[in-house]
């Protein structure tokens, strides 16, 4: 008997060891990871300090006072220091003599003497922007020094900011990391949060303990008293810009969590050892590594994120659902990061472009168009004054057509003489010309110069950055295209008005005029390609408005969930731990299995009408009280509310060994958690899809023929039109069709135009059916709506450019013309069939794609 037990004892011992080692190890790994994050936080902080100093050094009032009235500098510095990261801010004149020095509230001053002759000062006096981590006296500081350079590039002085790595900064890091933090240098503890826990300990002793712990195999730091706790610590060295070691940053993770988990694990093992060797092993590993740790990591990640720290890594690599949750959470975070950055930049640019593009598309009144161009552009580029000049064709003179900020309510505004020269330069250069805070960019279409935009920034703003130059250029190109359209349109209209009078005169003249008209019309046709461009721009614009909204919605969902999740997680963990005390390992395992099985169902549960909840709860309450469960009413209500009534037998089963209130609360929390995470997942997927769609729609390489699934483009377009599709039901009849060779972005416009027309025709209710099919070596797409249909007298004209039955401002009448043009360019054709309640557009595309020569000749004209 005794010998038979030997393997089991070994097994238990091993399993025990494995579990503990695993827990301990994962805690250590996490501590190291946290130290890494702390380092990244510190570097972020360094950059922030530098950016602040640079902004201050560029401030026009500082430059001016340093030159003219140094005695007023101290007041300025004091005022500025108040809004900066707690730091000691010093300003020296061009010879390095301190002019002012101010402590931001809460900043500890390093000793005065160390400042003079500091390396940072020397570097900055030599025009170098310098930043480092350094030991100053007994402190470790972030030190940034930036030269103050005036418009003439002469040195005016130096700004130096010094931020100590002290208790306060450690506290700030602790807030983000949820871990204790210490900065150690020169055998001294310069800043720490550990002391708030280890109240009985002094700095010196704490340092000794930390050093000892870090030297050990398993670095555990004990702060003494029970309350003070034990920590697993990790350290990362800090270095100066010259690569010298200046100290280290130490992070400590509370072992409480570990101890709780260990207690659970020990209990589990006690039973498992009797059951079987392998079960024990599996159970222990699962218990130790796969649930507690990942959950708490997820918890931490969410916490960090709620605090706005997206750099917090979440490495949970388990194959179960928690792992999956974590991964989807992680993906969401990446997508959000990426997205937020791009969107913030793009949206303001695009919405302006949109605004202009849309108006250009519909208004076609040249002067209105030009006014919009200048006002919008001044807004995006933070320009004080802006003028749009056009070239008079007959003599090449530049005329002021529109302006912003030039004054002149009465009579023509005064155009600074240098502006004309700069504008002329930009036209001659086919590009951007910069003269201090003045920038000119030409307006041109098809190699014909139309004029130029001149922008001027106020003297207290920085000169134009490269990004601003780039934006001005893009904008000008688009605007020019539209201006030309507007001009042509007016020419035609003027002409046809005149024509009527002419008719009454002489036929001979009419014939002549007809030739003229034809010429103008053919010219208009010539610019069709140009119109396509502007239409595409208009399309993009309306997208952005939609997208901004669409992103807000899922972001809101995420934000909502993220705020509550940490607390719920906390509660769940506490309940889990409490139940682990009450239940046997086997029961515990069963409970976890049941719950993890239930999770997807709980996640999907929606809100039910109150009446139904009441009815079901009443029924469940009867069942529960019959089984002798106390407070059956409350439990029943809770279970029903979160859609978990089917788990009631399970609650009953555990009722004699555990508190049903706890079990139900756990279920409730889990349901809540699952729903929250489900919401995040959905929102996340939605954001990713949007970003993908937006990118696919607008960033496709316009010159590349790409082999695609025809439905990809349709789906992209649908995603983008999503908001407008409300009330419309979509029926997709996609068949297996071969891939086709297309210019992706252009073909997307075909789908956009067709779908947009259908949506407009349906006016908020009806059905759109999209069907794909194969027809010989062609792929067909059929888009049908059950709207009012196209009257037979209108039908023959719908493909004509500028033909529209929609009110002015709503339709340009270009949509179908463009669609046909693009389809034909792809070597395909487009057909229409319509009767009331059934309008159907069919697009045929050849699998082989556009014929090369056709495609290129078209390209060249664009």
């Amino acid at each position: 008997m005794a010998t038979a037990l030997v393997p089991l004892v070994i097994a238990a011992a091993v399993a025990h060891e494995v579990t503990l080692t695993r827990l301990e190890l994962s805690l250590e790994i996490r501590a190291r990871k946290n130290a890494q994050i702390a380092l990244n936080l510190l570097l972020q902080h360094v950059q922030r300090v530098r950016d602040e100093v640079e902004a201050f050094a560029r401030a026009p009032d500082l430059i001016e006072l340093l030159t003219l009235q140094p005695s007023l500098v101290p007041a300025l510095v004091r005022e500025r220091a108040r809004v900066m990261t707690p730091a000691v801010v010093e300003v020296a004149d061009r010879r390095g003599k301190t002019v002012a020095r101010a402590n931001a509230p809460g900043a500890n001053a390093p000793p005065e003497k160390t400042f003079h002759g500091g390396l940072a000062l020397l570097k900055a006096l030599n025009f170098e922007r310098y930043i480092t981590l350094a030991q100053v006296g007994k402190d470790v500081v972030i030190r940034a020094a930036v030269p103050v350079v005036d418009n003439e590039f002469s040195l005016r002085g130096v700004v130096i900011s010094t931020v100590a790595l002290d208790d306060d900064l450690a506290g700030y890091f602790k807030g983000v990391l949820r871990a204790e933090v210490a900065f150690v240098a020169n055998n001294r503890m310069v800043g720490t949060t550990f002391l708030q826990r280890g109240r009985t300990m002094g700095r010196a002793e704490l340092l000794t303990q930390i050093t000892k712990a870090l030297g050990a195999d398993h670095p555990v730091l004990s702060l003494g008293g029970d309350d003070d706790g034990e920590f697993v610590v990790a350290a990362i060295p800090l270095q100066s810009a010259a690569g010298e070691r200046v100290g280290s940053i130490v992070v400590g993770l509370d072992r409480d969590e570990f101890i709780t988990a260990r207690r659970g694990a020990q209990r589990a093992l006690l039973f498992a050892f009797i059951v079987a060797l392998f079960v024990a092993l599996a159970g222990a590993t699962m218990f130790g590594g796969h649930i507690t740790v990942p959950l708490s990591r997820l918890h931490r990640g969410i916490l960090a994120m709620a605090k706005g720290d997206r750099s917090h890594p979440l490495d949970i690599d388990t194959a179960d659902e928690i792992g999956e949750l974590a991964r989807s959470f992680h993906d969401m975070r990446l997508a959000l990061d990426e997205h937020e950055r791009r969107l913030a930049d793009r949206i303001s640019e695009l919405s302006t472009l949109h605004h202009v593009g849309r108006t250009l598309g519909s208004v076609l009144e040249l002067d209105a168009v030009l006014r919009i161009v200048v006002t919008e552009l001044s807004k995006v580029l933070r320009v004080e004054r802006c003028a749009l000049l056009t070239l008079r064709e007959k003599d090449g003179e530049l005329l002021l057509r529109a302006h912003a900020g030039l004054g002149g309510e009465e009579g023509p505004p005064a155009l600074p003489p240098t502006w004309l020269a700069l504008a002329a330069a930009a036209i001659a250069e086919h590009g951007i010309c910069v003269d201090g805070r003045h920038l000119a960019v030409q307006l041109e279409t098809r190699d014909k110069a139309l004029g130029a935009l001149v922008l001027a920034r106020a003297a207290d703003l920085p000169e134009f950055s490269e990004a601003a130059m780039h934006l001005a250029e893009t904008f000008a190109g688009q605007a020019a295209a539209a201006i030309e359209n507007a001009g042509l349109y007016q020419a035609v209209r003027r002409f046809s008005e005149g024509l009527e009078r002419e008719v009454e005169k002489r036929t001979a003249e009419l014939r002549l005029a007809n030739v003229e008209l034809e010429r103008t019309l053919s010219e208009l046709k010539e610019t069709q390609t140009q119109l396509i461009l502007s239409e595409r721009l208009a399309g993009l614009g309306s997208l952005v408005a939609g997208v901004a909204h669409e992103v807000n919605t899922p972001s809101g969902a995420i934000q909502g969930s993220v705020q509550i999740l940490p607390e719920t997680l906390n509660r769940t963990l506490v309940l889990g731990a409490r139940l682990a005390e009450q239940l046997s390992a086997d029961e515990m395992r069963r409970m976890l299995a049941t719950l993890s099985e239930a999770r997807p169902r709980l996640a999907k549960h929606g809100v039910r009408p109150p009446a139904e909840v009441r009815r079901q709860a009443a029924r469940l309450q009867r069942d529960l009280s019959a089984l002798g469960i106390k407070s059956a009413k409350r439990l029943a209500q809770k279970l029903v509310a979160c859609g978990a009534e089917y788990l009631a037998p399970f609650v009953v089963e555990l009722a004699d060994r555990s508190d049903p209130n706890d079990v139900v609360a756990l279920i409730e929390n889990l349901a809540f958690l699952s729903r929250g995470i489900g919401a995040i997942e959905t929102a996340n997927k939605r954001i990713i899809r949007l970003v993908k769609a937006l990118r696919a729609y607008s960033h496709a390489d316009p010159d590349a023929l790409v082999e695609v699934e025809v439905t990809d483009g349709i789906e992209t377009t649908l995603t983008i039109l999503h908001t407008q599709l409300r009330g419309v039901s979509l029926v997709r009849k996609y068949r297996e069709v071969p891939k086709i060779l297309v210019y992706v972005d252009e073909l997307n416009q075909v789908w956009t135009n067709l779908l947009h027309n259908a949506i407009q025709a349906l006016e908020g209710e009806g059905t759109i059916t999209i069907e794909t099919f194969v027809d010989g070596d062609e792929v067909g797409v059929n888009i049908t709506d059950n709207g009012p249909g196209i009257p037979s007298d209108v039908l023959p004209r719908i493909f004509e450019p500028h033909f529209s039955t929609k009110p002015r401002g709503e339709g340009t009448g270009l949509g179908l013309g463009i669609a046909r043009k693009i389809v034909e360019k792809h070597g395909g054709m487009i057909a229409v069939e319509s009767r009331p309640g059934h309008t159907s557009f069919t697009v045929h595309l050849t699998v082989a794609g556009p014929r090369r020569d056709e495609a290129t000749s078209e390209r060249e004209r664009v």
Partner: protein
Amino acid sequence: MVCSSSLVRLSLTLLLLTGCERKASQPRRALVIAQPRAVESLDPPRNTTAEGAQVVSLLYEPLIRIDGASGRVMPGLAARWSVAPDGRTWTFHLRRGVRFHDGSPFDAKAVVYTIDRLRNSRHPHYHQGYAAWQNIVRNITAIEETGRFTLRLVTKRPFAPFLRNLAIFPLGIVKAQPLDRAISKTVALTPVGTGPYRISSHQRDEVILTRNPHYWGPKANVERLVFRAIKERRQRMLGLQSGTLDVAFGLAPADRPIVQLHPELRLQRGRGDNVAYLAMNTRRAPFDDVRVRRAINHAVDKGLIVKLGFQGLATVAHGALPPSVWAYTSKIKRYSYDPARARRLLGSVGYDPERPLRLYVMSTPRPYFPSPVLVARIIARNLARVGIPITLVVKSHAEHLAAVGRGEHDLCLLGWVGDNGDPDNFLYMLLDRDNARIGSAQNVAFFDHSKVHELLIAARQELNRAQRKELYLRAQQLIAEEAPWVPLAHSEYDVGVRHDIRGLSLSANGIIDFARARF
């Protein structure tokens, strides 16, 4: 029992530990490298930028190699060579057993094809983009296959920089294509090479290379190289910090300290054989007058430019040659920063600006110009102070190159990274009249001086190093007198790298041999 239990315990613990270990250091197989602009082409001679040079030199190999550390001439695809006593007839013995990426064998035919295609504008596979490099092969009068692996090249006259010119990246050997047909577009854009890496995919902003498993020499360590064009400097820096990039070119001076403070990143510093300069278009007024050019030389504060625009990581230049090139001399006329004198000089000429002059500058950082627009702004101020109003014309690097090559500028900023350490590669390329052809000019000052031309040509034909040096000395003195440029700086430059990537070194031509990279 105790004994056996602790044994099992031990071994299991070990197992777990090693398990963790392996996971932590999973082999990384790709390097992601960010460059500030896109590669121009994968066809070697269509490139003139550092970005292009970097990528094509991993794909194609020239006959000759310049050793990165010593600057010496080494065998490349040619194993040996000799020159006849006339100094004009060269025989090359090619390396055997080398295969192109498609498996076909490398032989003399490919070399003939590569050189012919470049030097002969009527070659069926010539491309107009080759024009900038034609002069490095122009004086080859005959190429002949004398065996499957031997080859004879004859130059018009003895030609000193001959071997070193064969080592420049546009002469990376490509596989011969049948001449009777027009070359297909794909082949023209991505010829087949022999290098340690081969093309895996090429998009406008991303080129992916994979290791050539059949490479004849020591095989590369890293499986894949991803070259990404990232225009925004902040994006490059973020990528480096967050670990999505392994290497970033084009670091702004302001980003260097952050790399230094990050224990997982380091700066790979390179001594550049380079020069950054302000060129004056000598074909136009007012710069057709040498006195104006000298005045400009006195007006520009190079010391300030080096401090502010290079953050100190450069030395002030006085001539075209960096001190590391053997023909460098300090015995040339130097122009001190002296605005008063500049003003006097301009006054004596009677120069009166009727229009602002146009200073062309690229918006893309270059290895020799970390912040070009800032430098241009400083120069604009300097010149305004002596009474010359300036308008900046800012263009992307590609457009800038095209515009200044056509001679549209009054003044322009440009620089040069030496390809092969030979003085000819600077002086002849950048300041000889042969390279001042409108359209494909490398000599963007359009400096045309017959005496300088004579000296540079004579130096090309002089095989004796000491006498050659003497010729270059005189050429440099004349150039300094004539002042077609304001030479600005010779700079070192930094590439940001993850600390665990080893084996990188930045050679003088600004190229990193990523085939030697390892983790």
